[in-house]
């Protein structure tokens, strides 16, 4: 039997590893800001609440290419933030895999915030009052009551964010282009193969790889959600 079918080509394995790396970094870096934003939106009463809500949801509604182009304007070599980053820390994200992670993170951020916000809103505020009466200030109440009770939703948000980051396309290609080995994730590799005449077989293989990855993500989500409920 020929096992070559199951062996990944260099392009495929690079795209797969890059996709996982980008999605992991994007989710890891957006998690804390997402928890913070979700808590502010769920419990905070302040001027600009509606504005923050719009700003958070915006990347979900805008065409991804617009978000990618906006990132290019801000974080590109000549962008205000990109320029400052390079000048002060020597860090550049344009046309780098870290830039792909930034694009994926920005795109998955609204989904994560929504999921976490819903789970914060589901925590009974009367339990938080009970904690306050037992001597817990706002921060302790958050750490000991609100956060643990919202954990299943936070796990779900992590998986949702990962899934969104794995499949991100529009913002990534607009911001960091499609460079094999650097910014070419699975979906970008699939797009490239689609442009090649007779590339159907390669497209089919990448498609199968994406399906396997997505199935794994769903299984992990189920596992984590169950684990979260029993915590």
């Amino acid at each position: 039997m020929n096992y070559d079918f199951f062996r990944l080509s260099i392009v495929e394995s690079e795209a797969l590893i890059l996709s996982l790396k980008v999605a992991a970094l994007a989710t890891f870096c957006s998690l804390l800001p997402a928890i913070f934003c979700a808590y502010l939106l769920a419990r905070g009463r302040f001027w600009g609440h509606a504005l923050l809500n719009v700003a958070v949801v915006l990347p979900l509604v805008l065409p991804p290419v617009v978000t990618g182009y906006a990132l290019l304007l801000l974080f590109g070599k000549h962008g205000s933030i990109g320029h400052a980053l390079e000048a002060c820390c020597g860090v550049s994200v344009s046309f780098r895999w870290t830039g792909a992670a930034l694009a994926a993170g920005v795109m998955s951020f609204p989904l994560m915030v929504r999921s976490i916000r819903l789970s914060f809103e589901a925590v009974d505020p009367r339990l938080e009052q009970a904690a306050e009466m037992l001597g817990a200030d706002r921060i302790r109440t958050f750490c000991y009551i609100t956060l643990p009770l919202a954990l299943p939703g936070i796990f779900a948000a992590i998986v949702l964010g990962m899934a969104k980051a794995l499949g991100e396309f529009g913002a990534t290609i607009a911001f960091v282009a499609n460079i094999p080995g650097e910014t070419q994730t699975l979906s970008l590799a699939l797009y490239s193969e689609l442009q090649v005449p007779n590339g159907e077989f390669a497209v089919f293989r990448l498609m199968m790889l994406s399906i396997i990855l997505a199935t794994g993500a769903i299984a992990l989500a189920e596992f984590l959600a169950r684990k979260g409920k029993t915590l």
Partner: protein
Amino acid sequence: MSIELDLTLMAPFHLHARLQSKHTAIGLVGKSGSGKTTLLNMIAGLVPARGRLVINGVVLQDDSQHINLPPYRRHIGYAFQDARLFPHLNVEHNLMFSQWIKFGTGRKATSNQAKSIIAALGLGRLLSRNIGHLSGGEKQRVALGRAMMGKPMILLLDEPLANVDATQKAETLFYIEKLQDLEPLPMIYVSHDNKEVSRMTRASFMLEPDGLLPIKFSE
């Protein structure tokens, strides 16, 4: 104990209460909807009110001096009508919550005070139990023990028998009395049931639309 209270709630409805008492246990009765729970919440600082509140000489709120302590600094033990036990913690961890977050001590009930409260409330065999597996009376006893554990200045009891079935009411009252014998804490006992209040307290007040009226129960 001494309590001096002159609090006004402006919204969502008007409620004014003025009270001065030196009794250890004060009862508060009134029809449902008269604002008994709201008054307790005003004392606890959970509902913003205006006025002055002094318990045992400690000023918890005085608008003229711009003092208004947040709930977590008032040292008030509050046993809510709906118990409000933390569903992700077991009985022992619920009981020890205030000690655990304040002093960073473990969540095990090892101190003498904890052991005596647990014994007085008959909670010894329930310590490792999940909150979802408790009866109404048991939940109320855990809520009571949890409120007492932090050695509060005063205990607020809001209809402790409301969610307890008829067969467990007498038992729960017995436990509350036992707790009072063990560690006589000043308390405000709220109920719609005059009999219950006259059994548990020495001085009682009726909450009426125009404030608190002292009442005397016939023996």
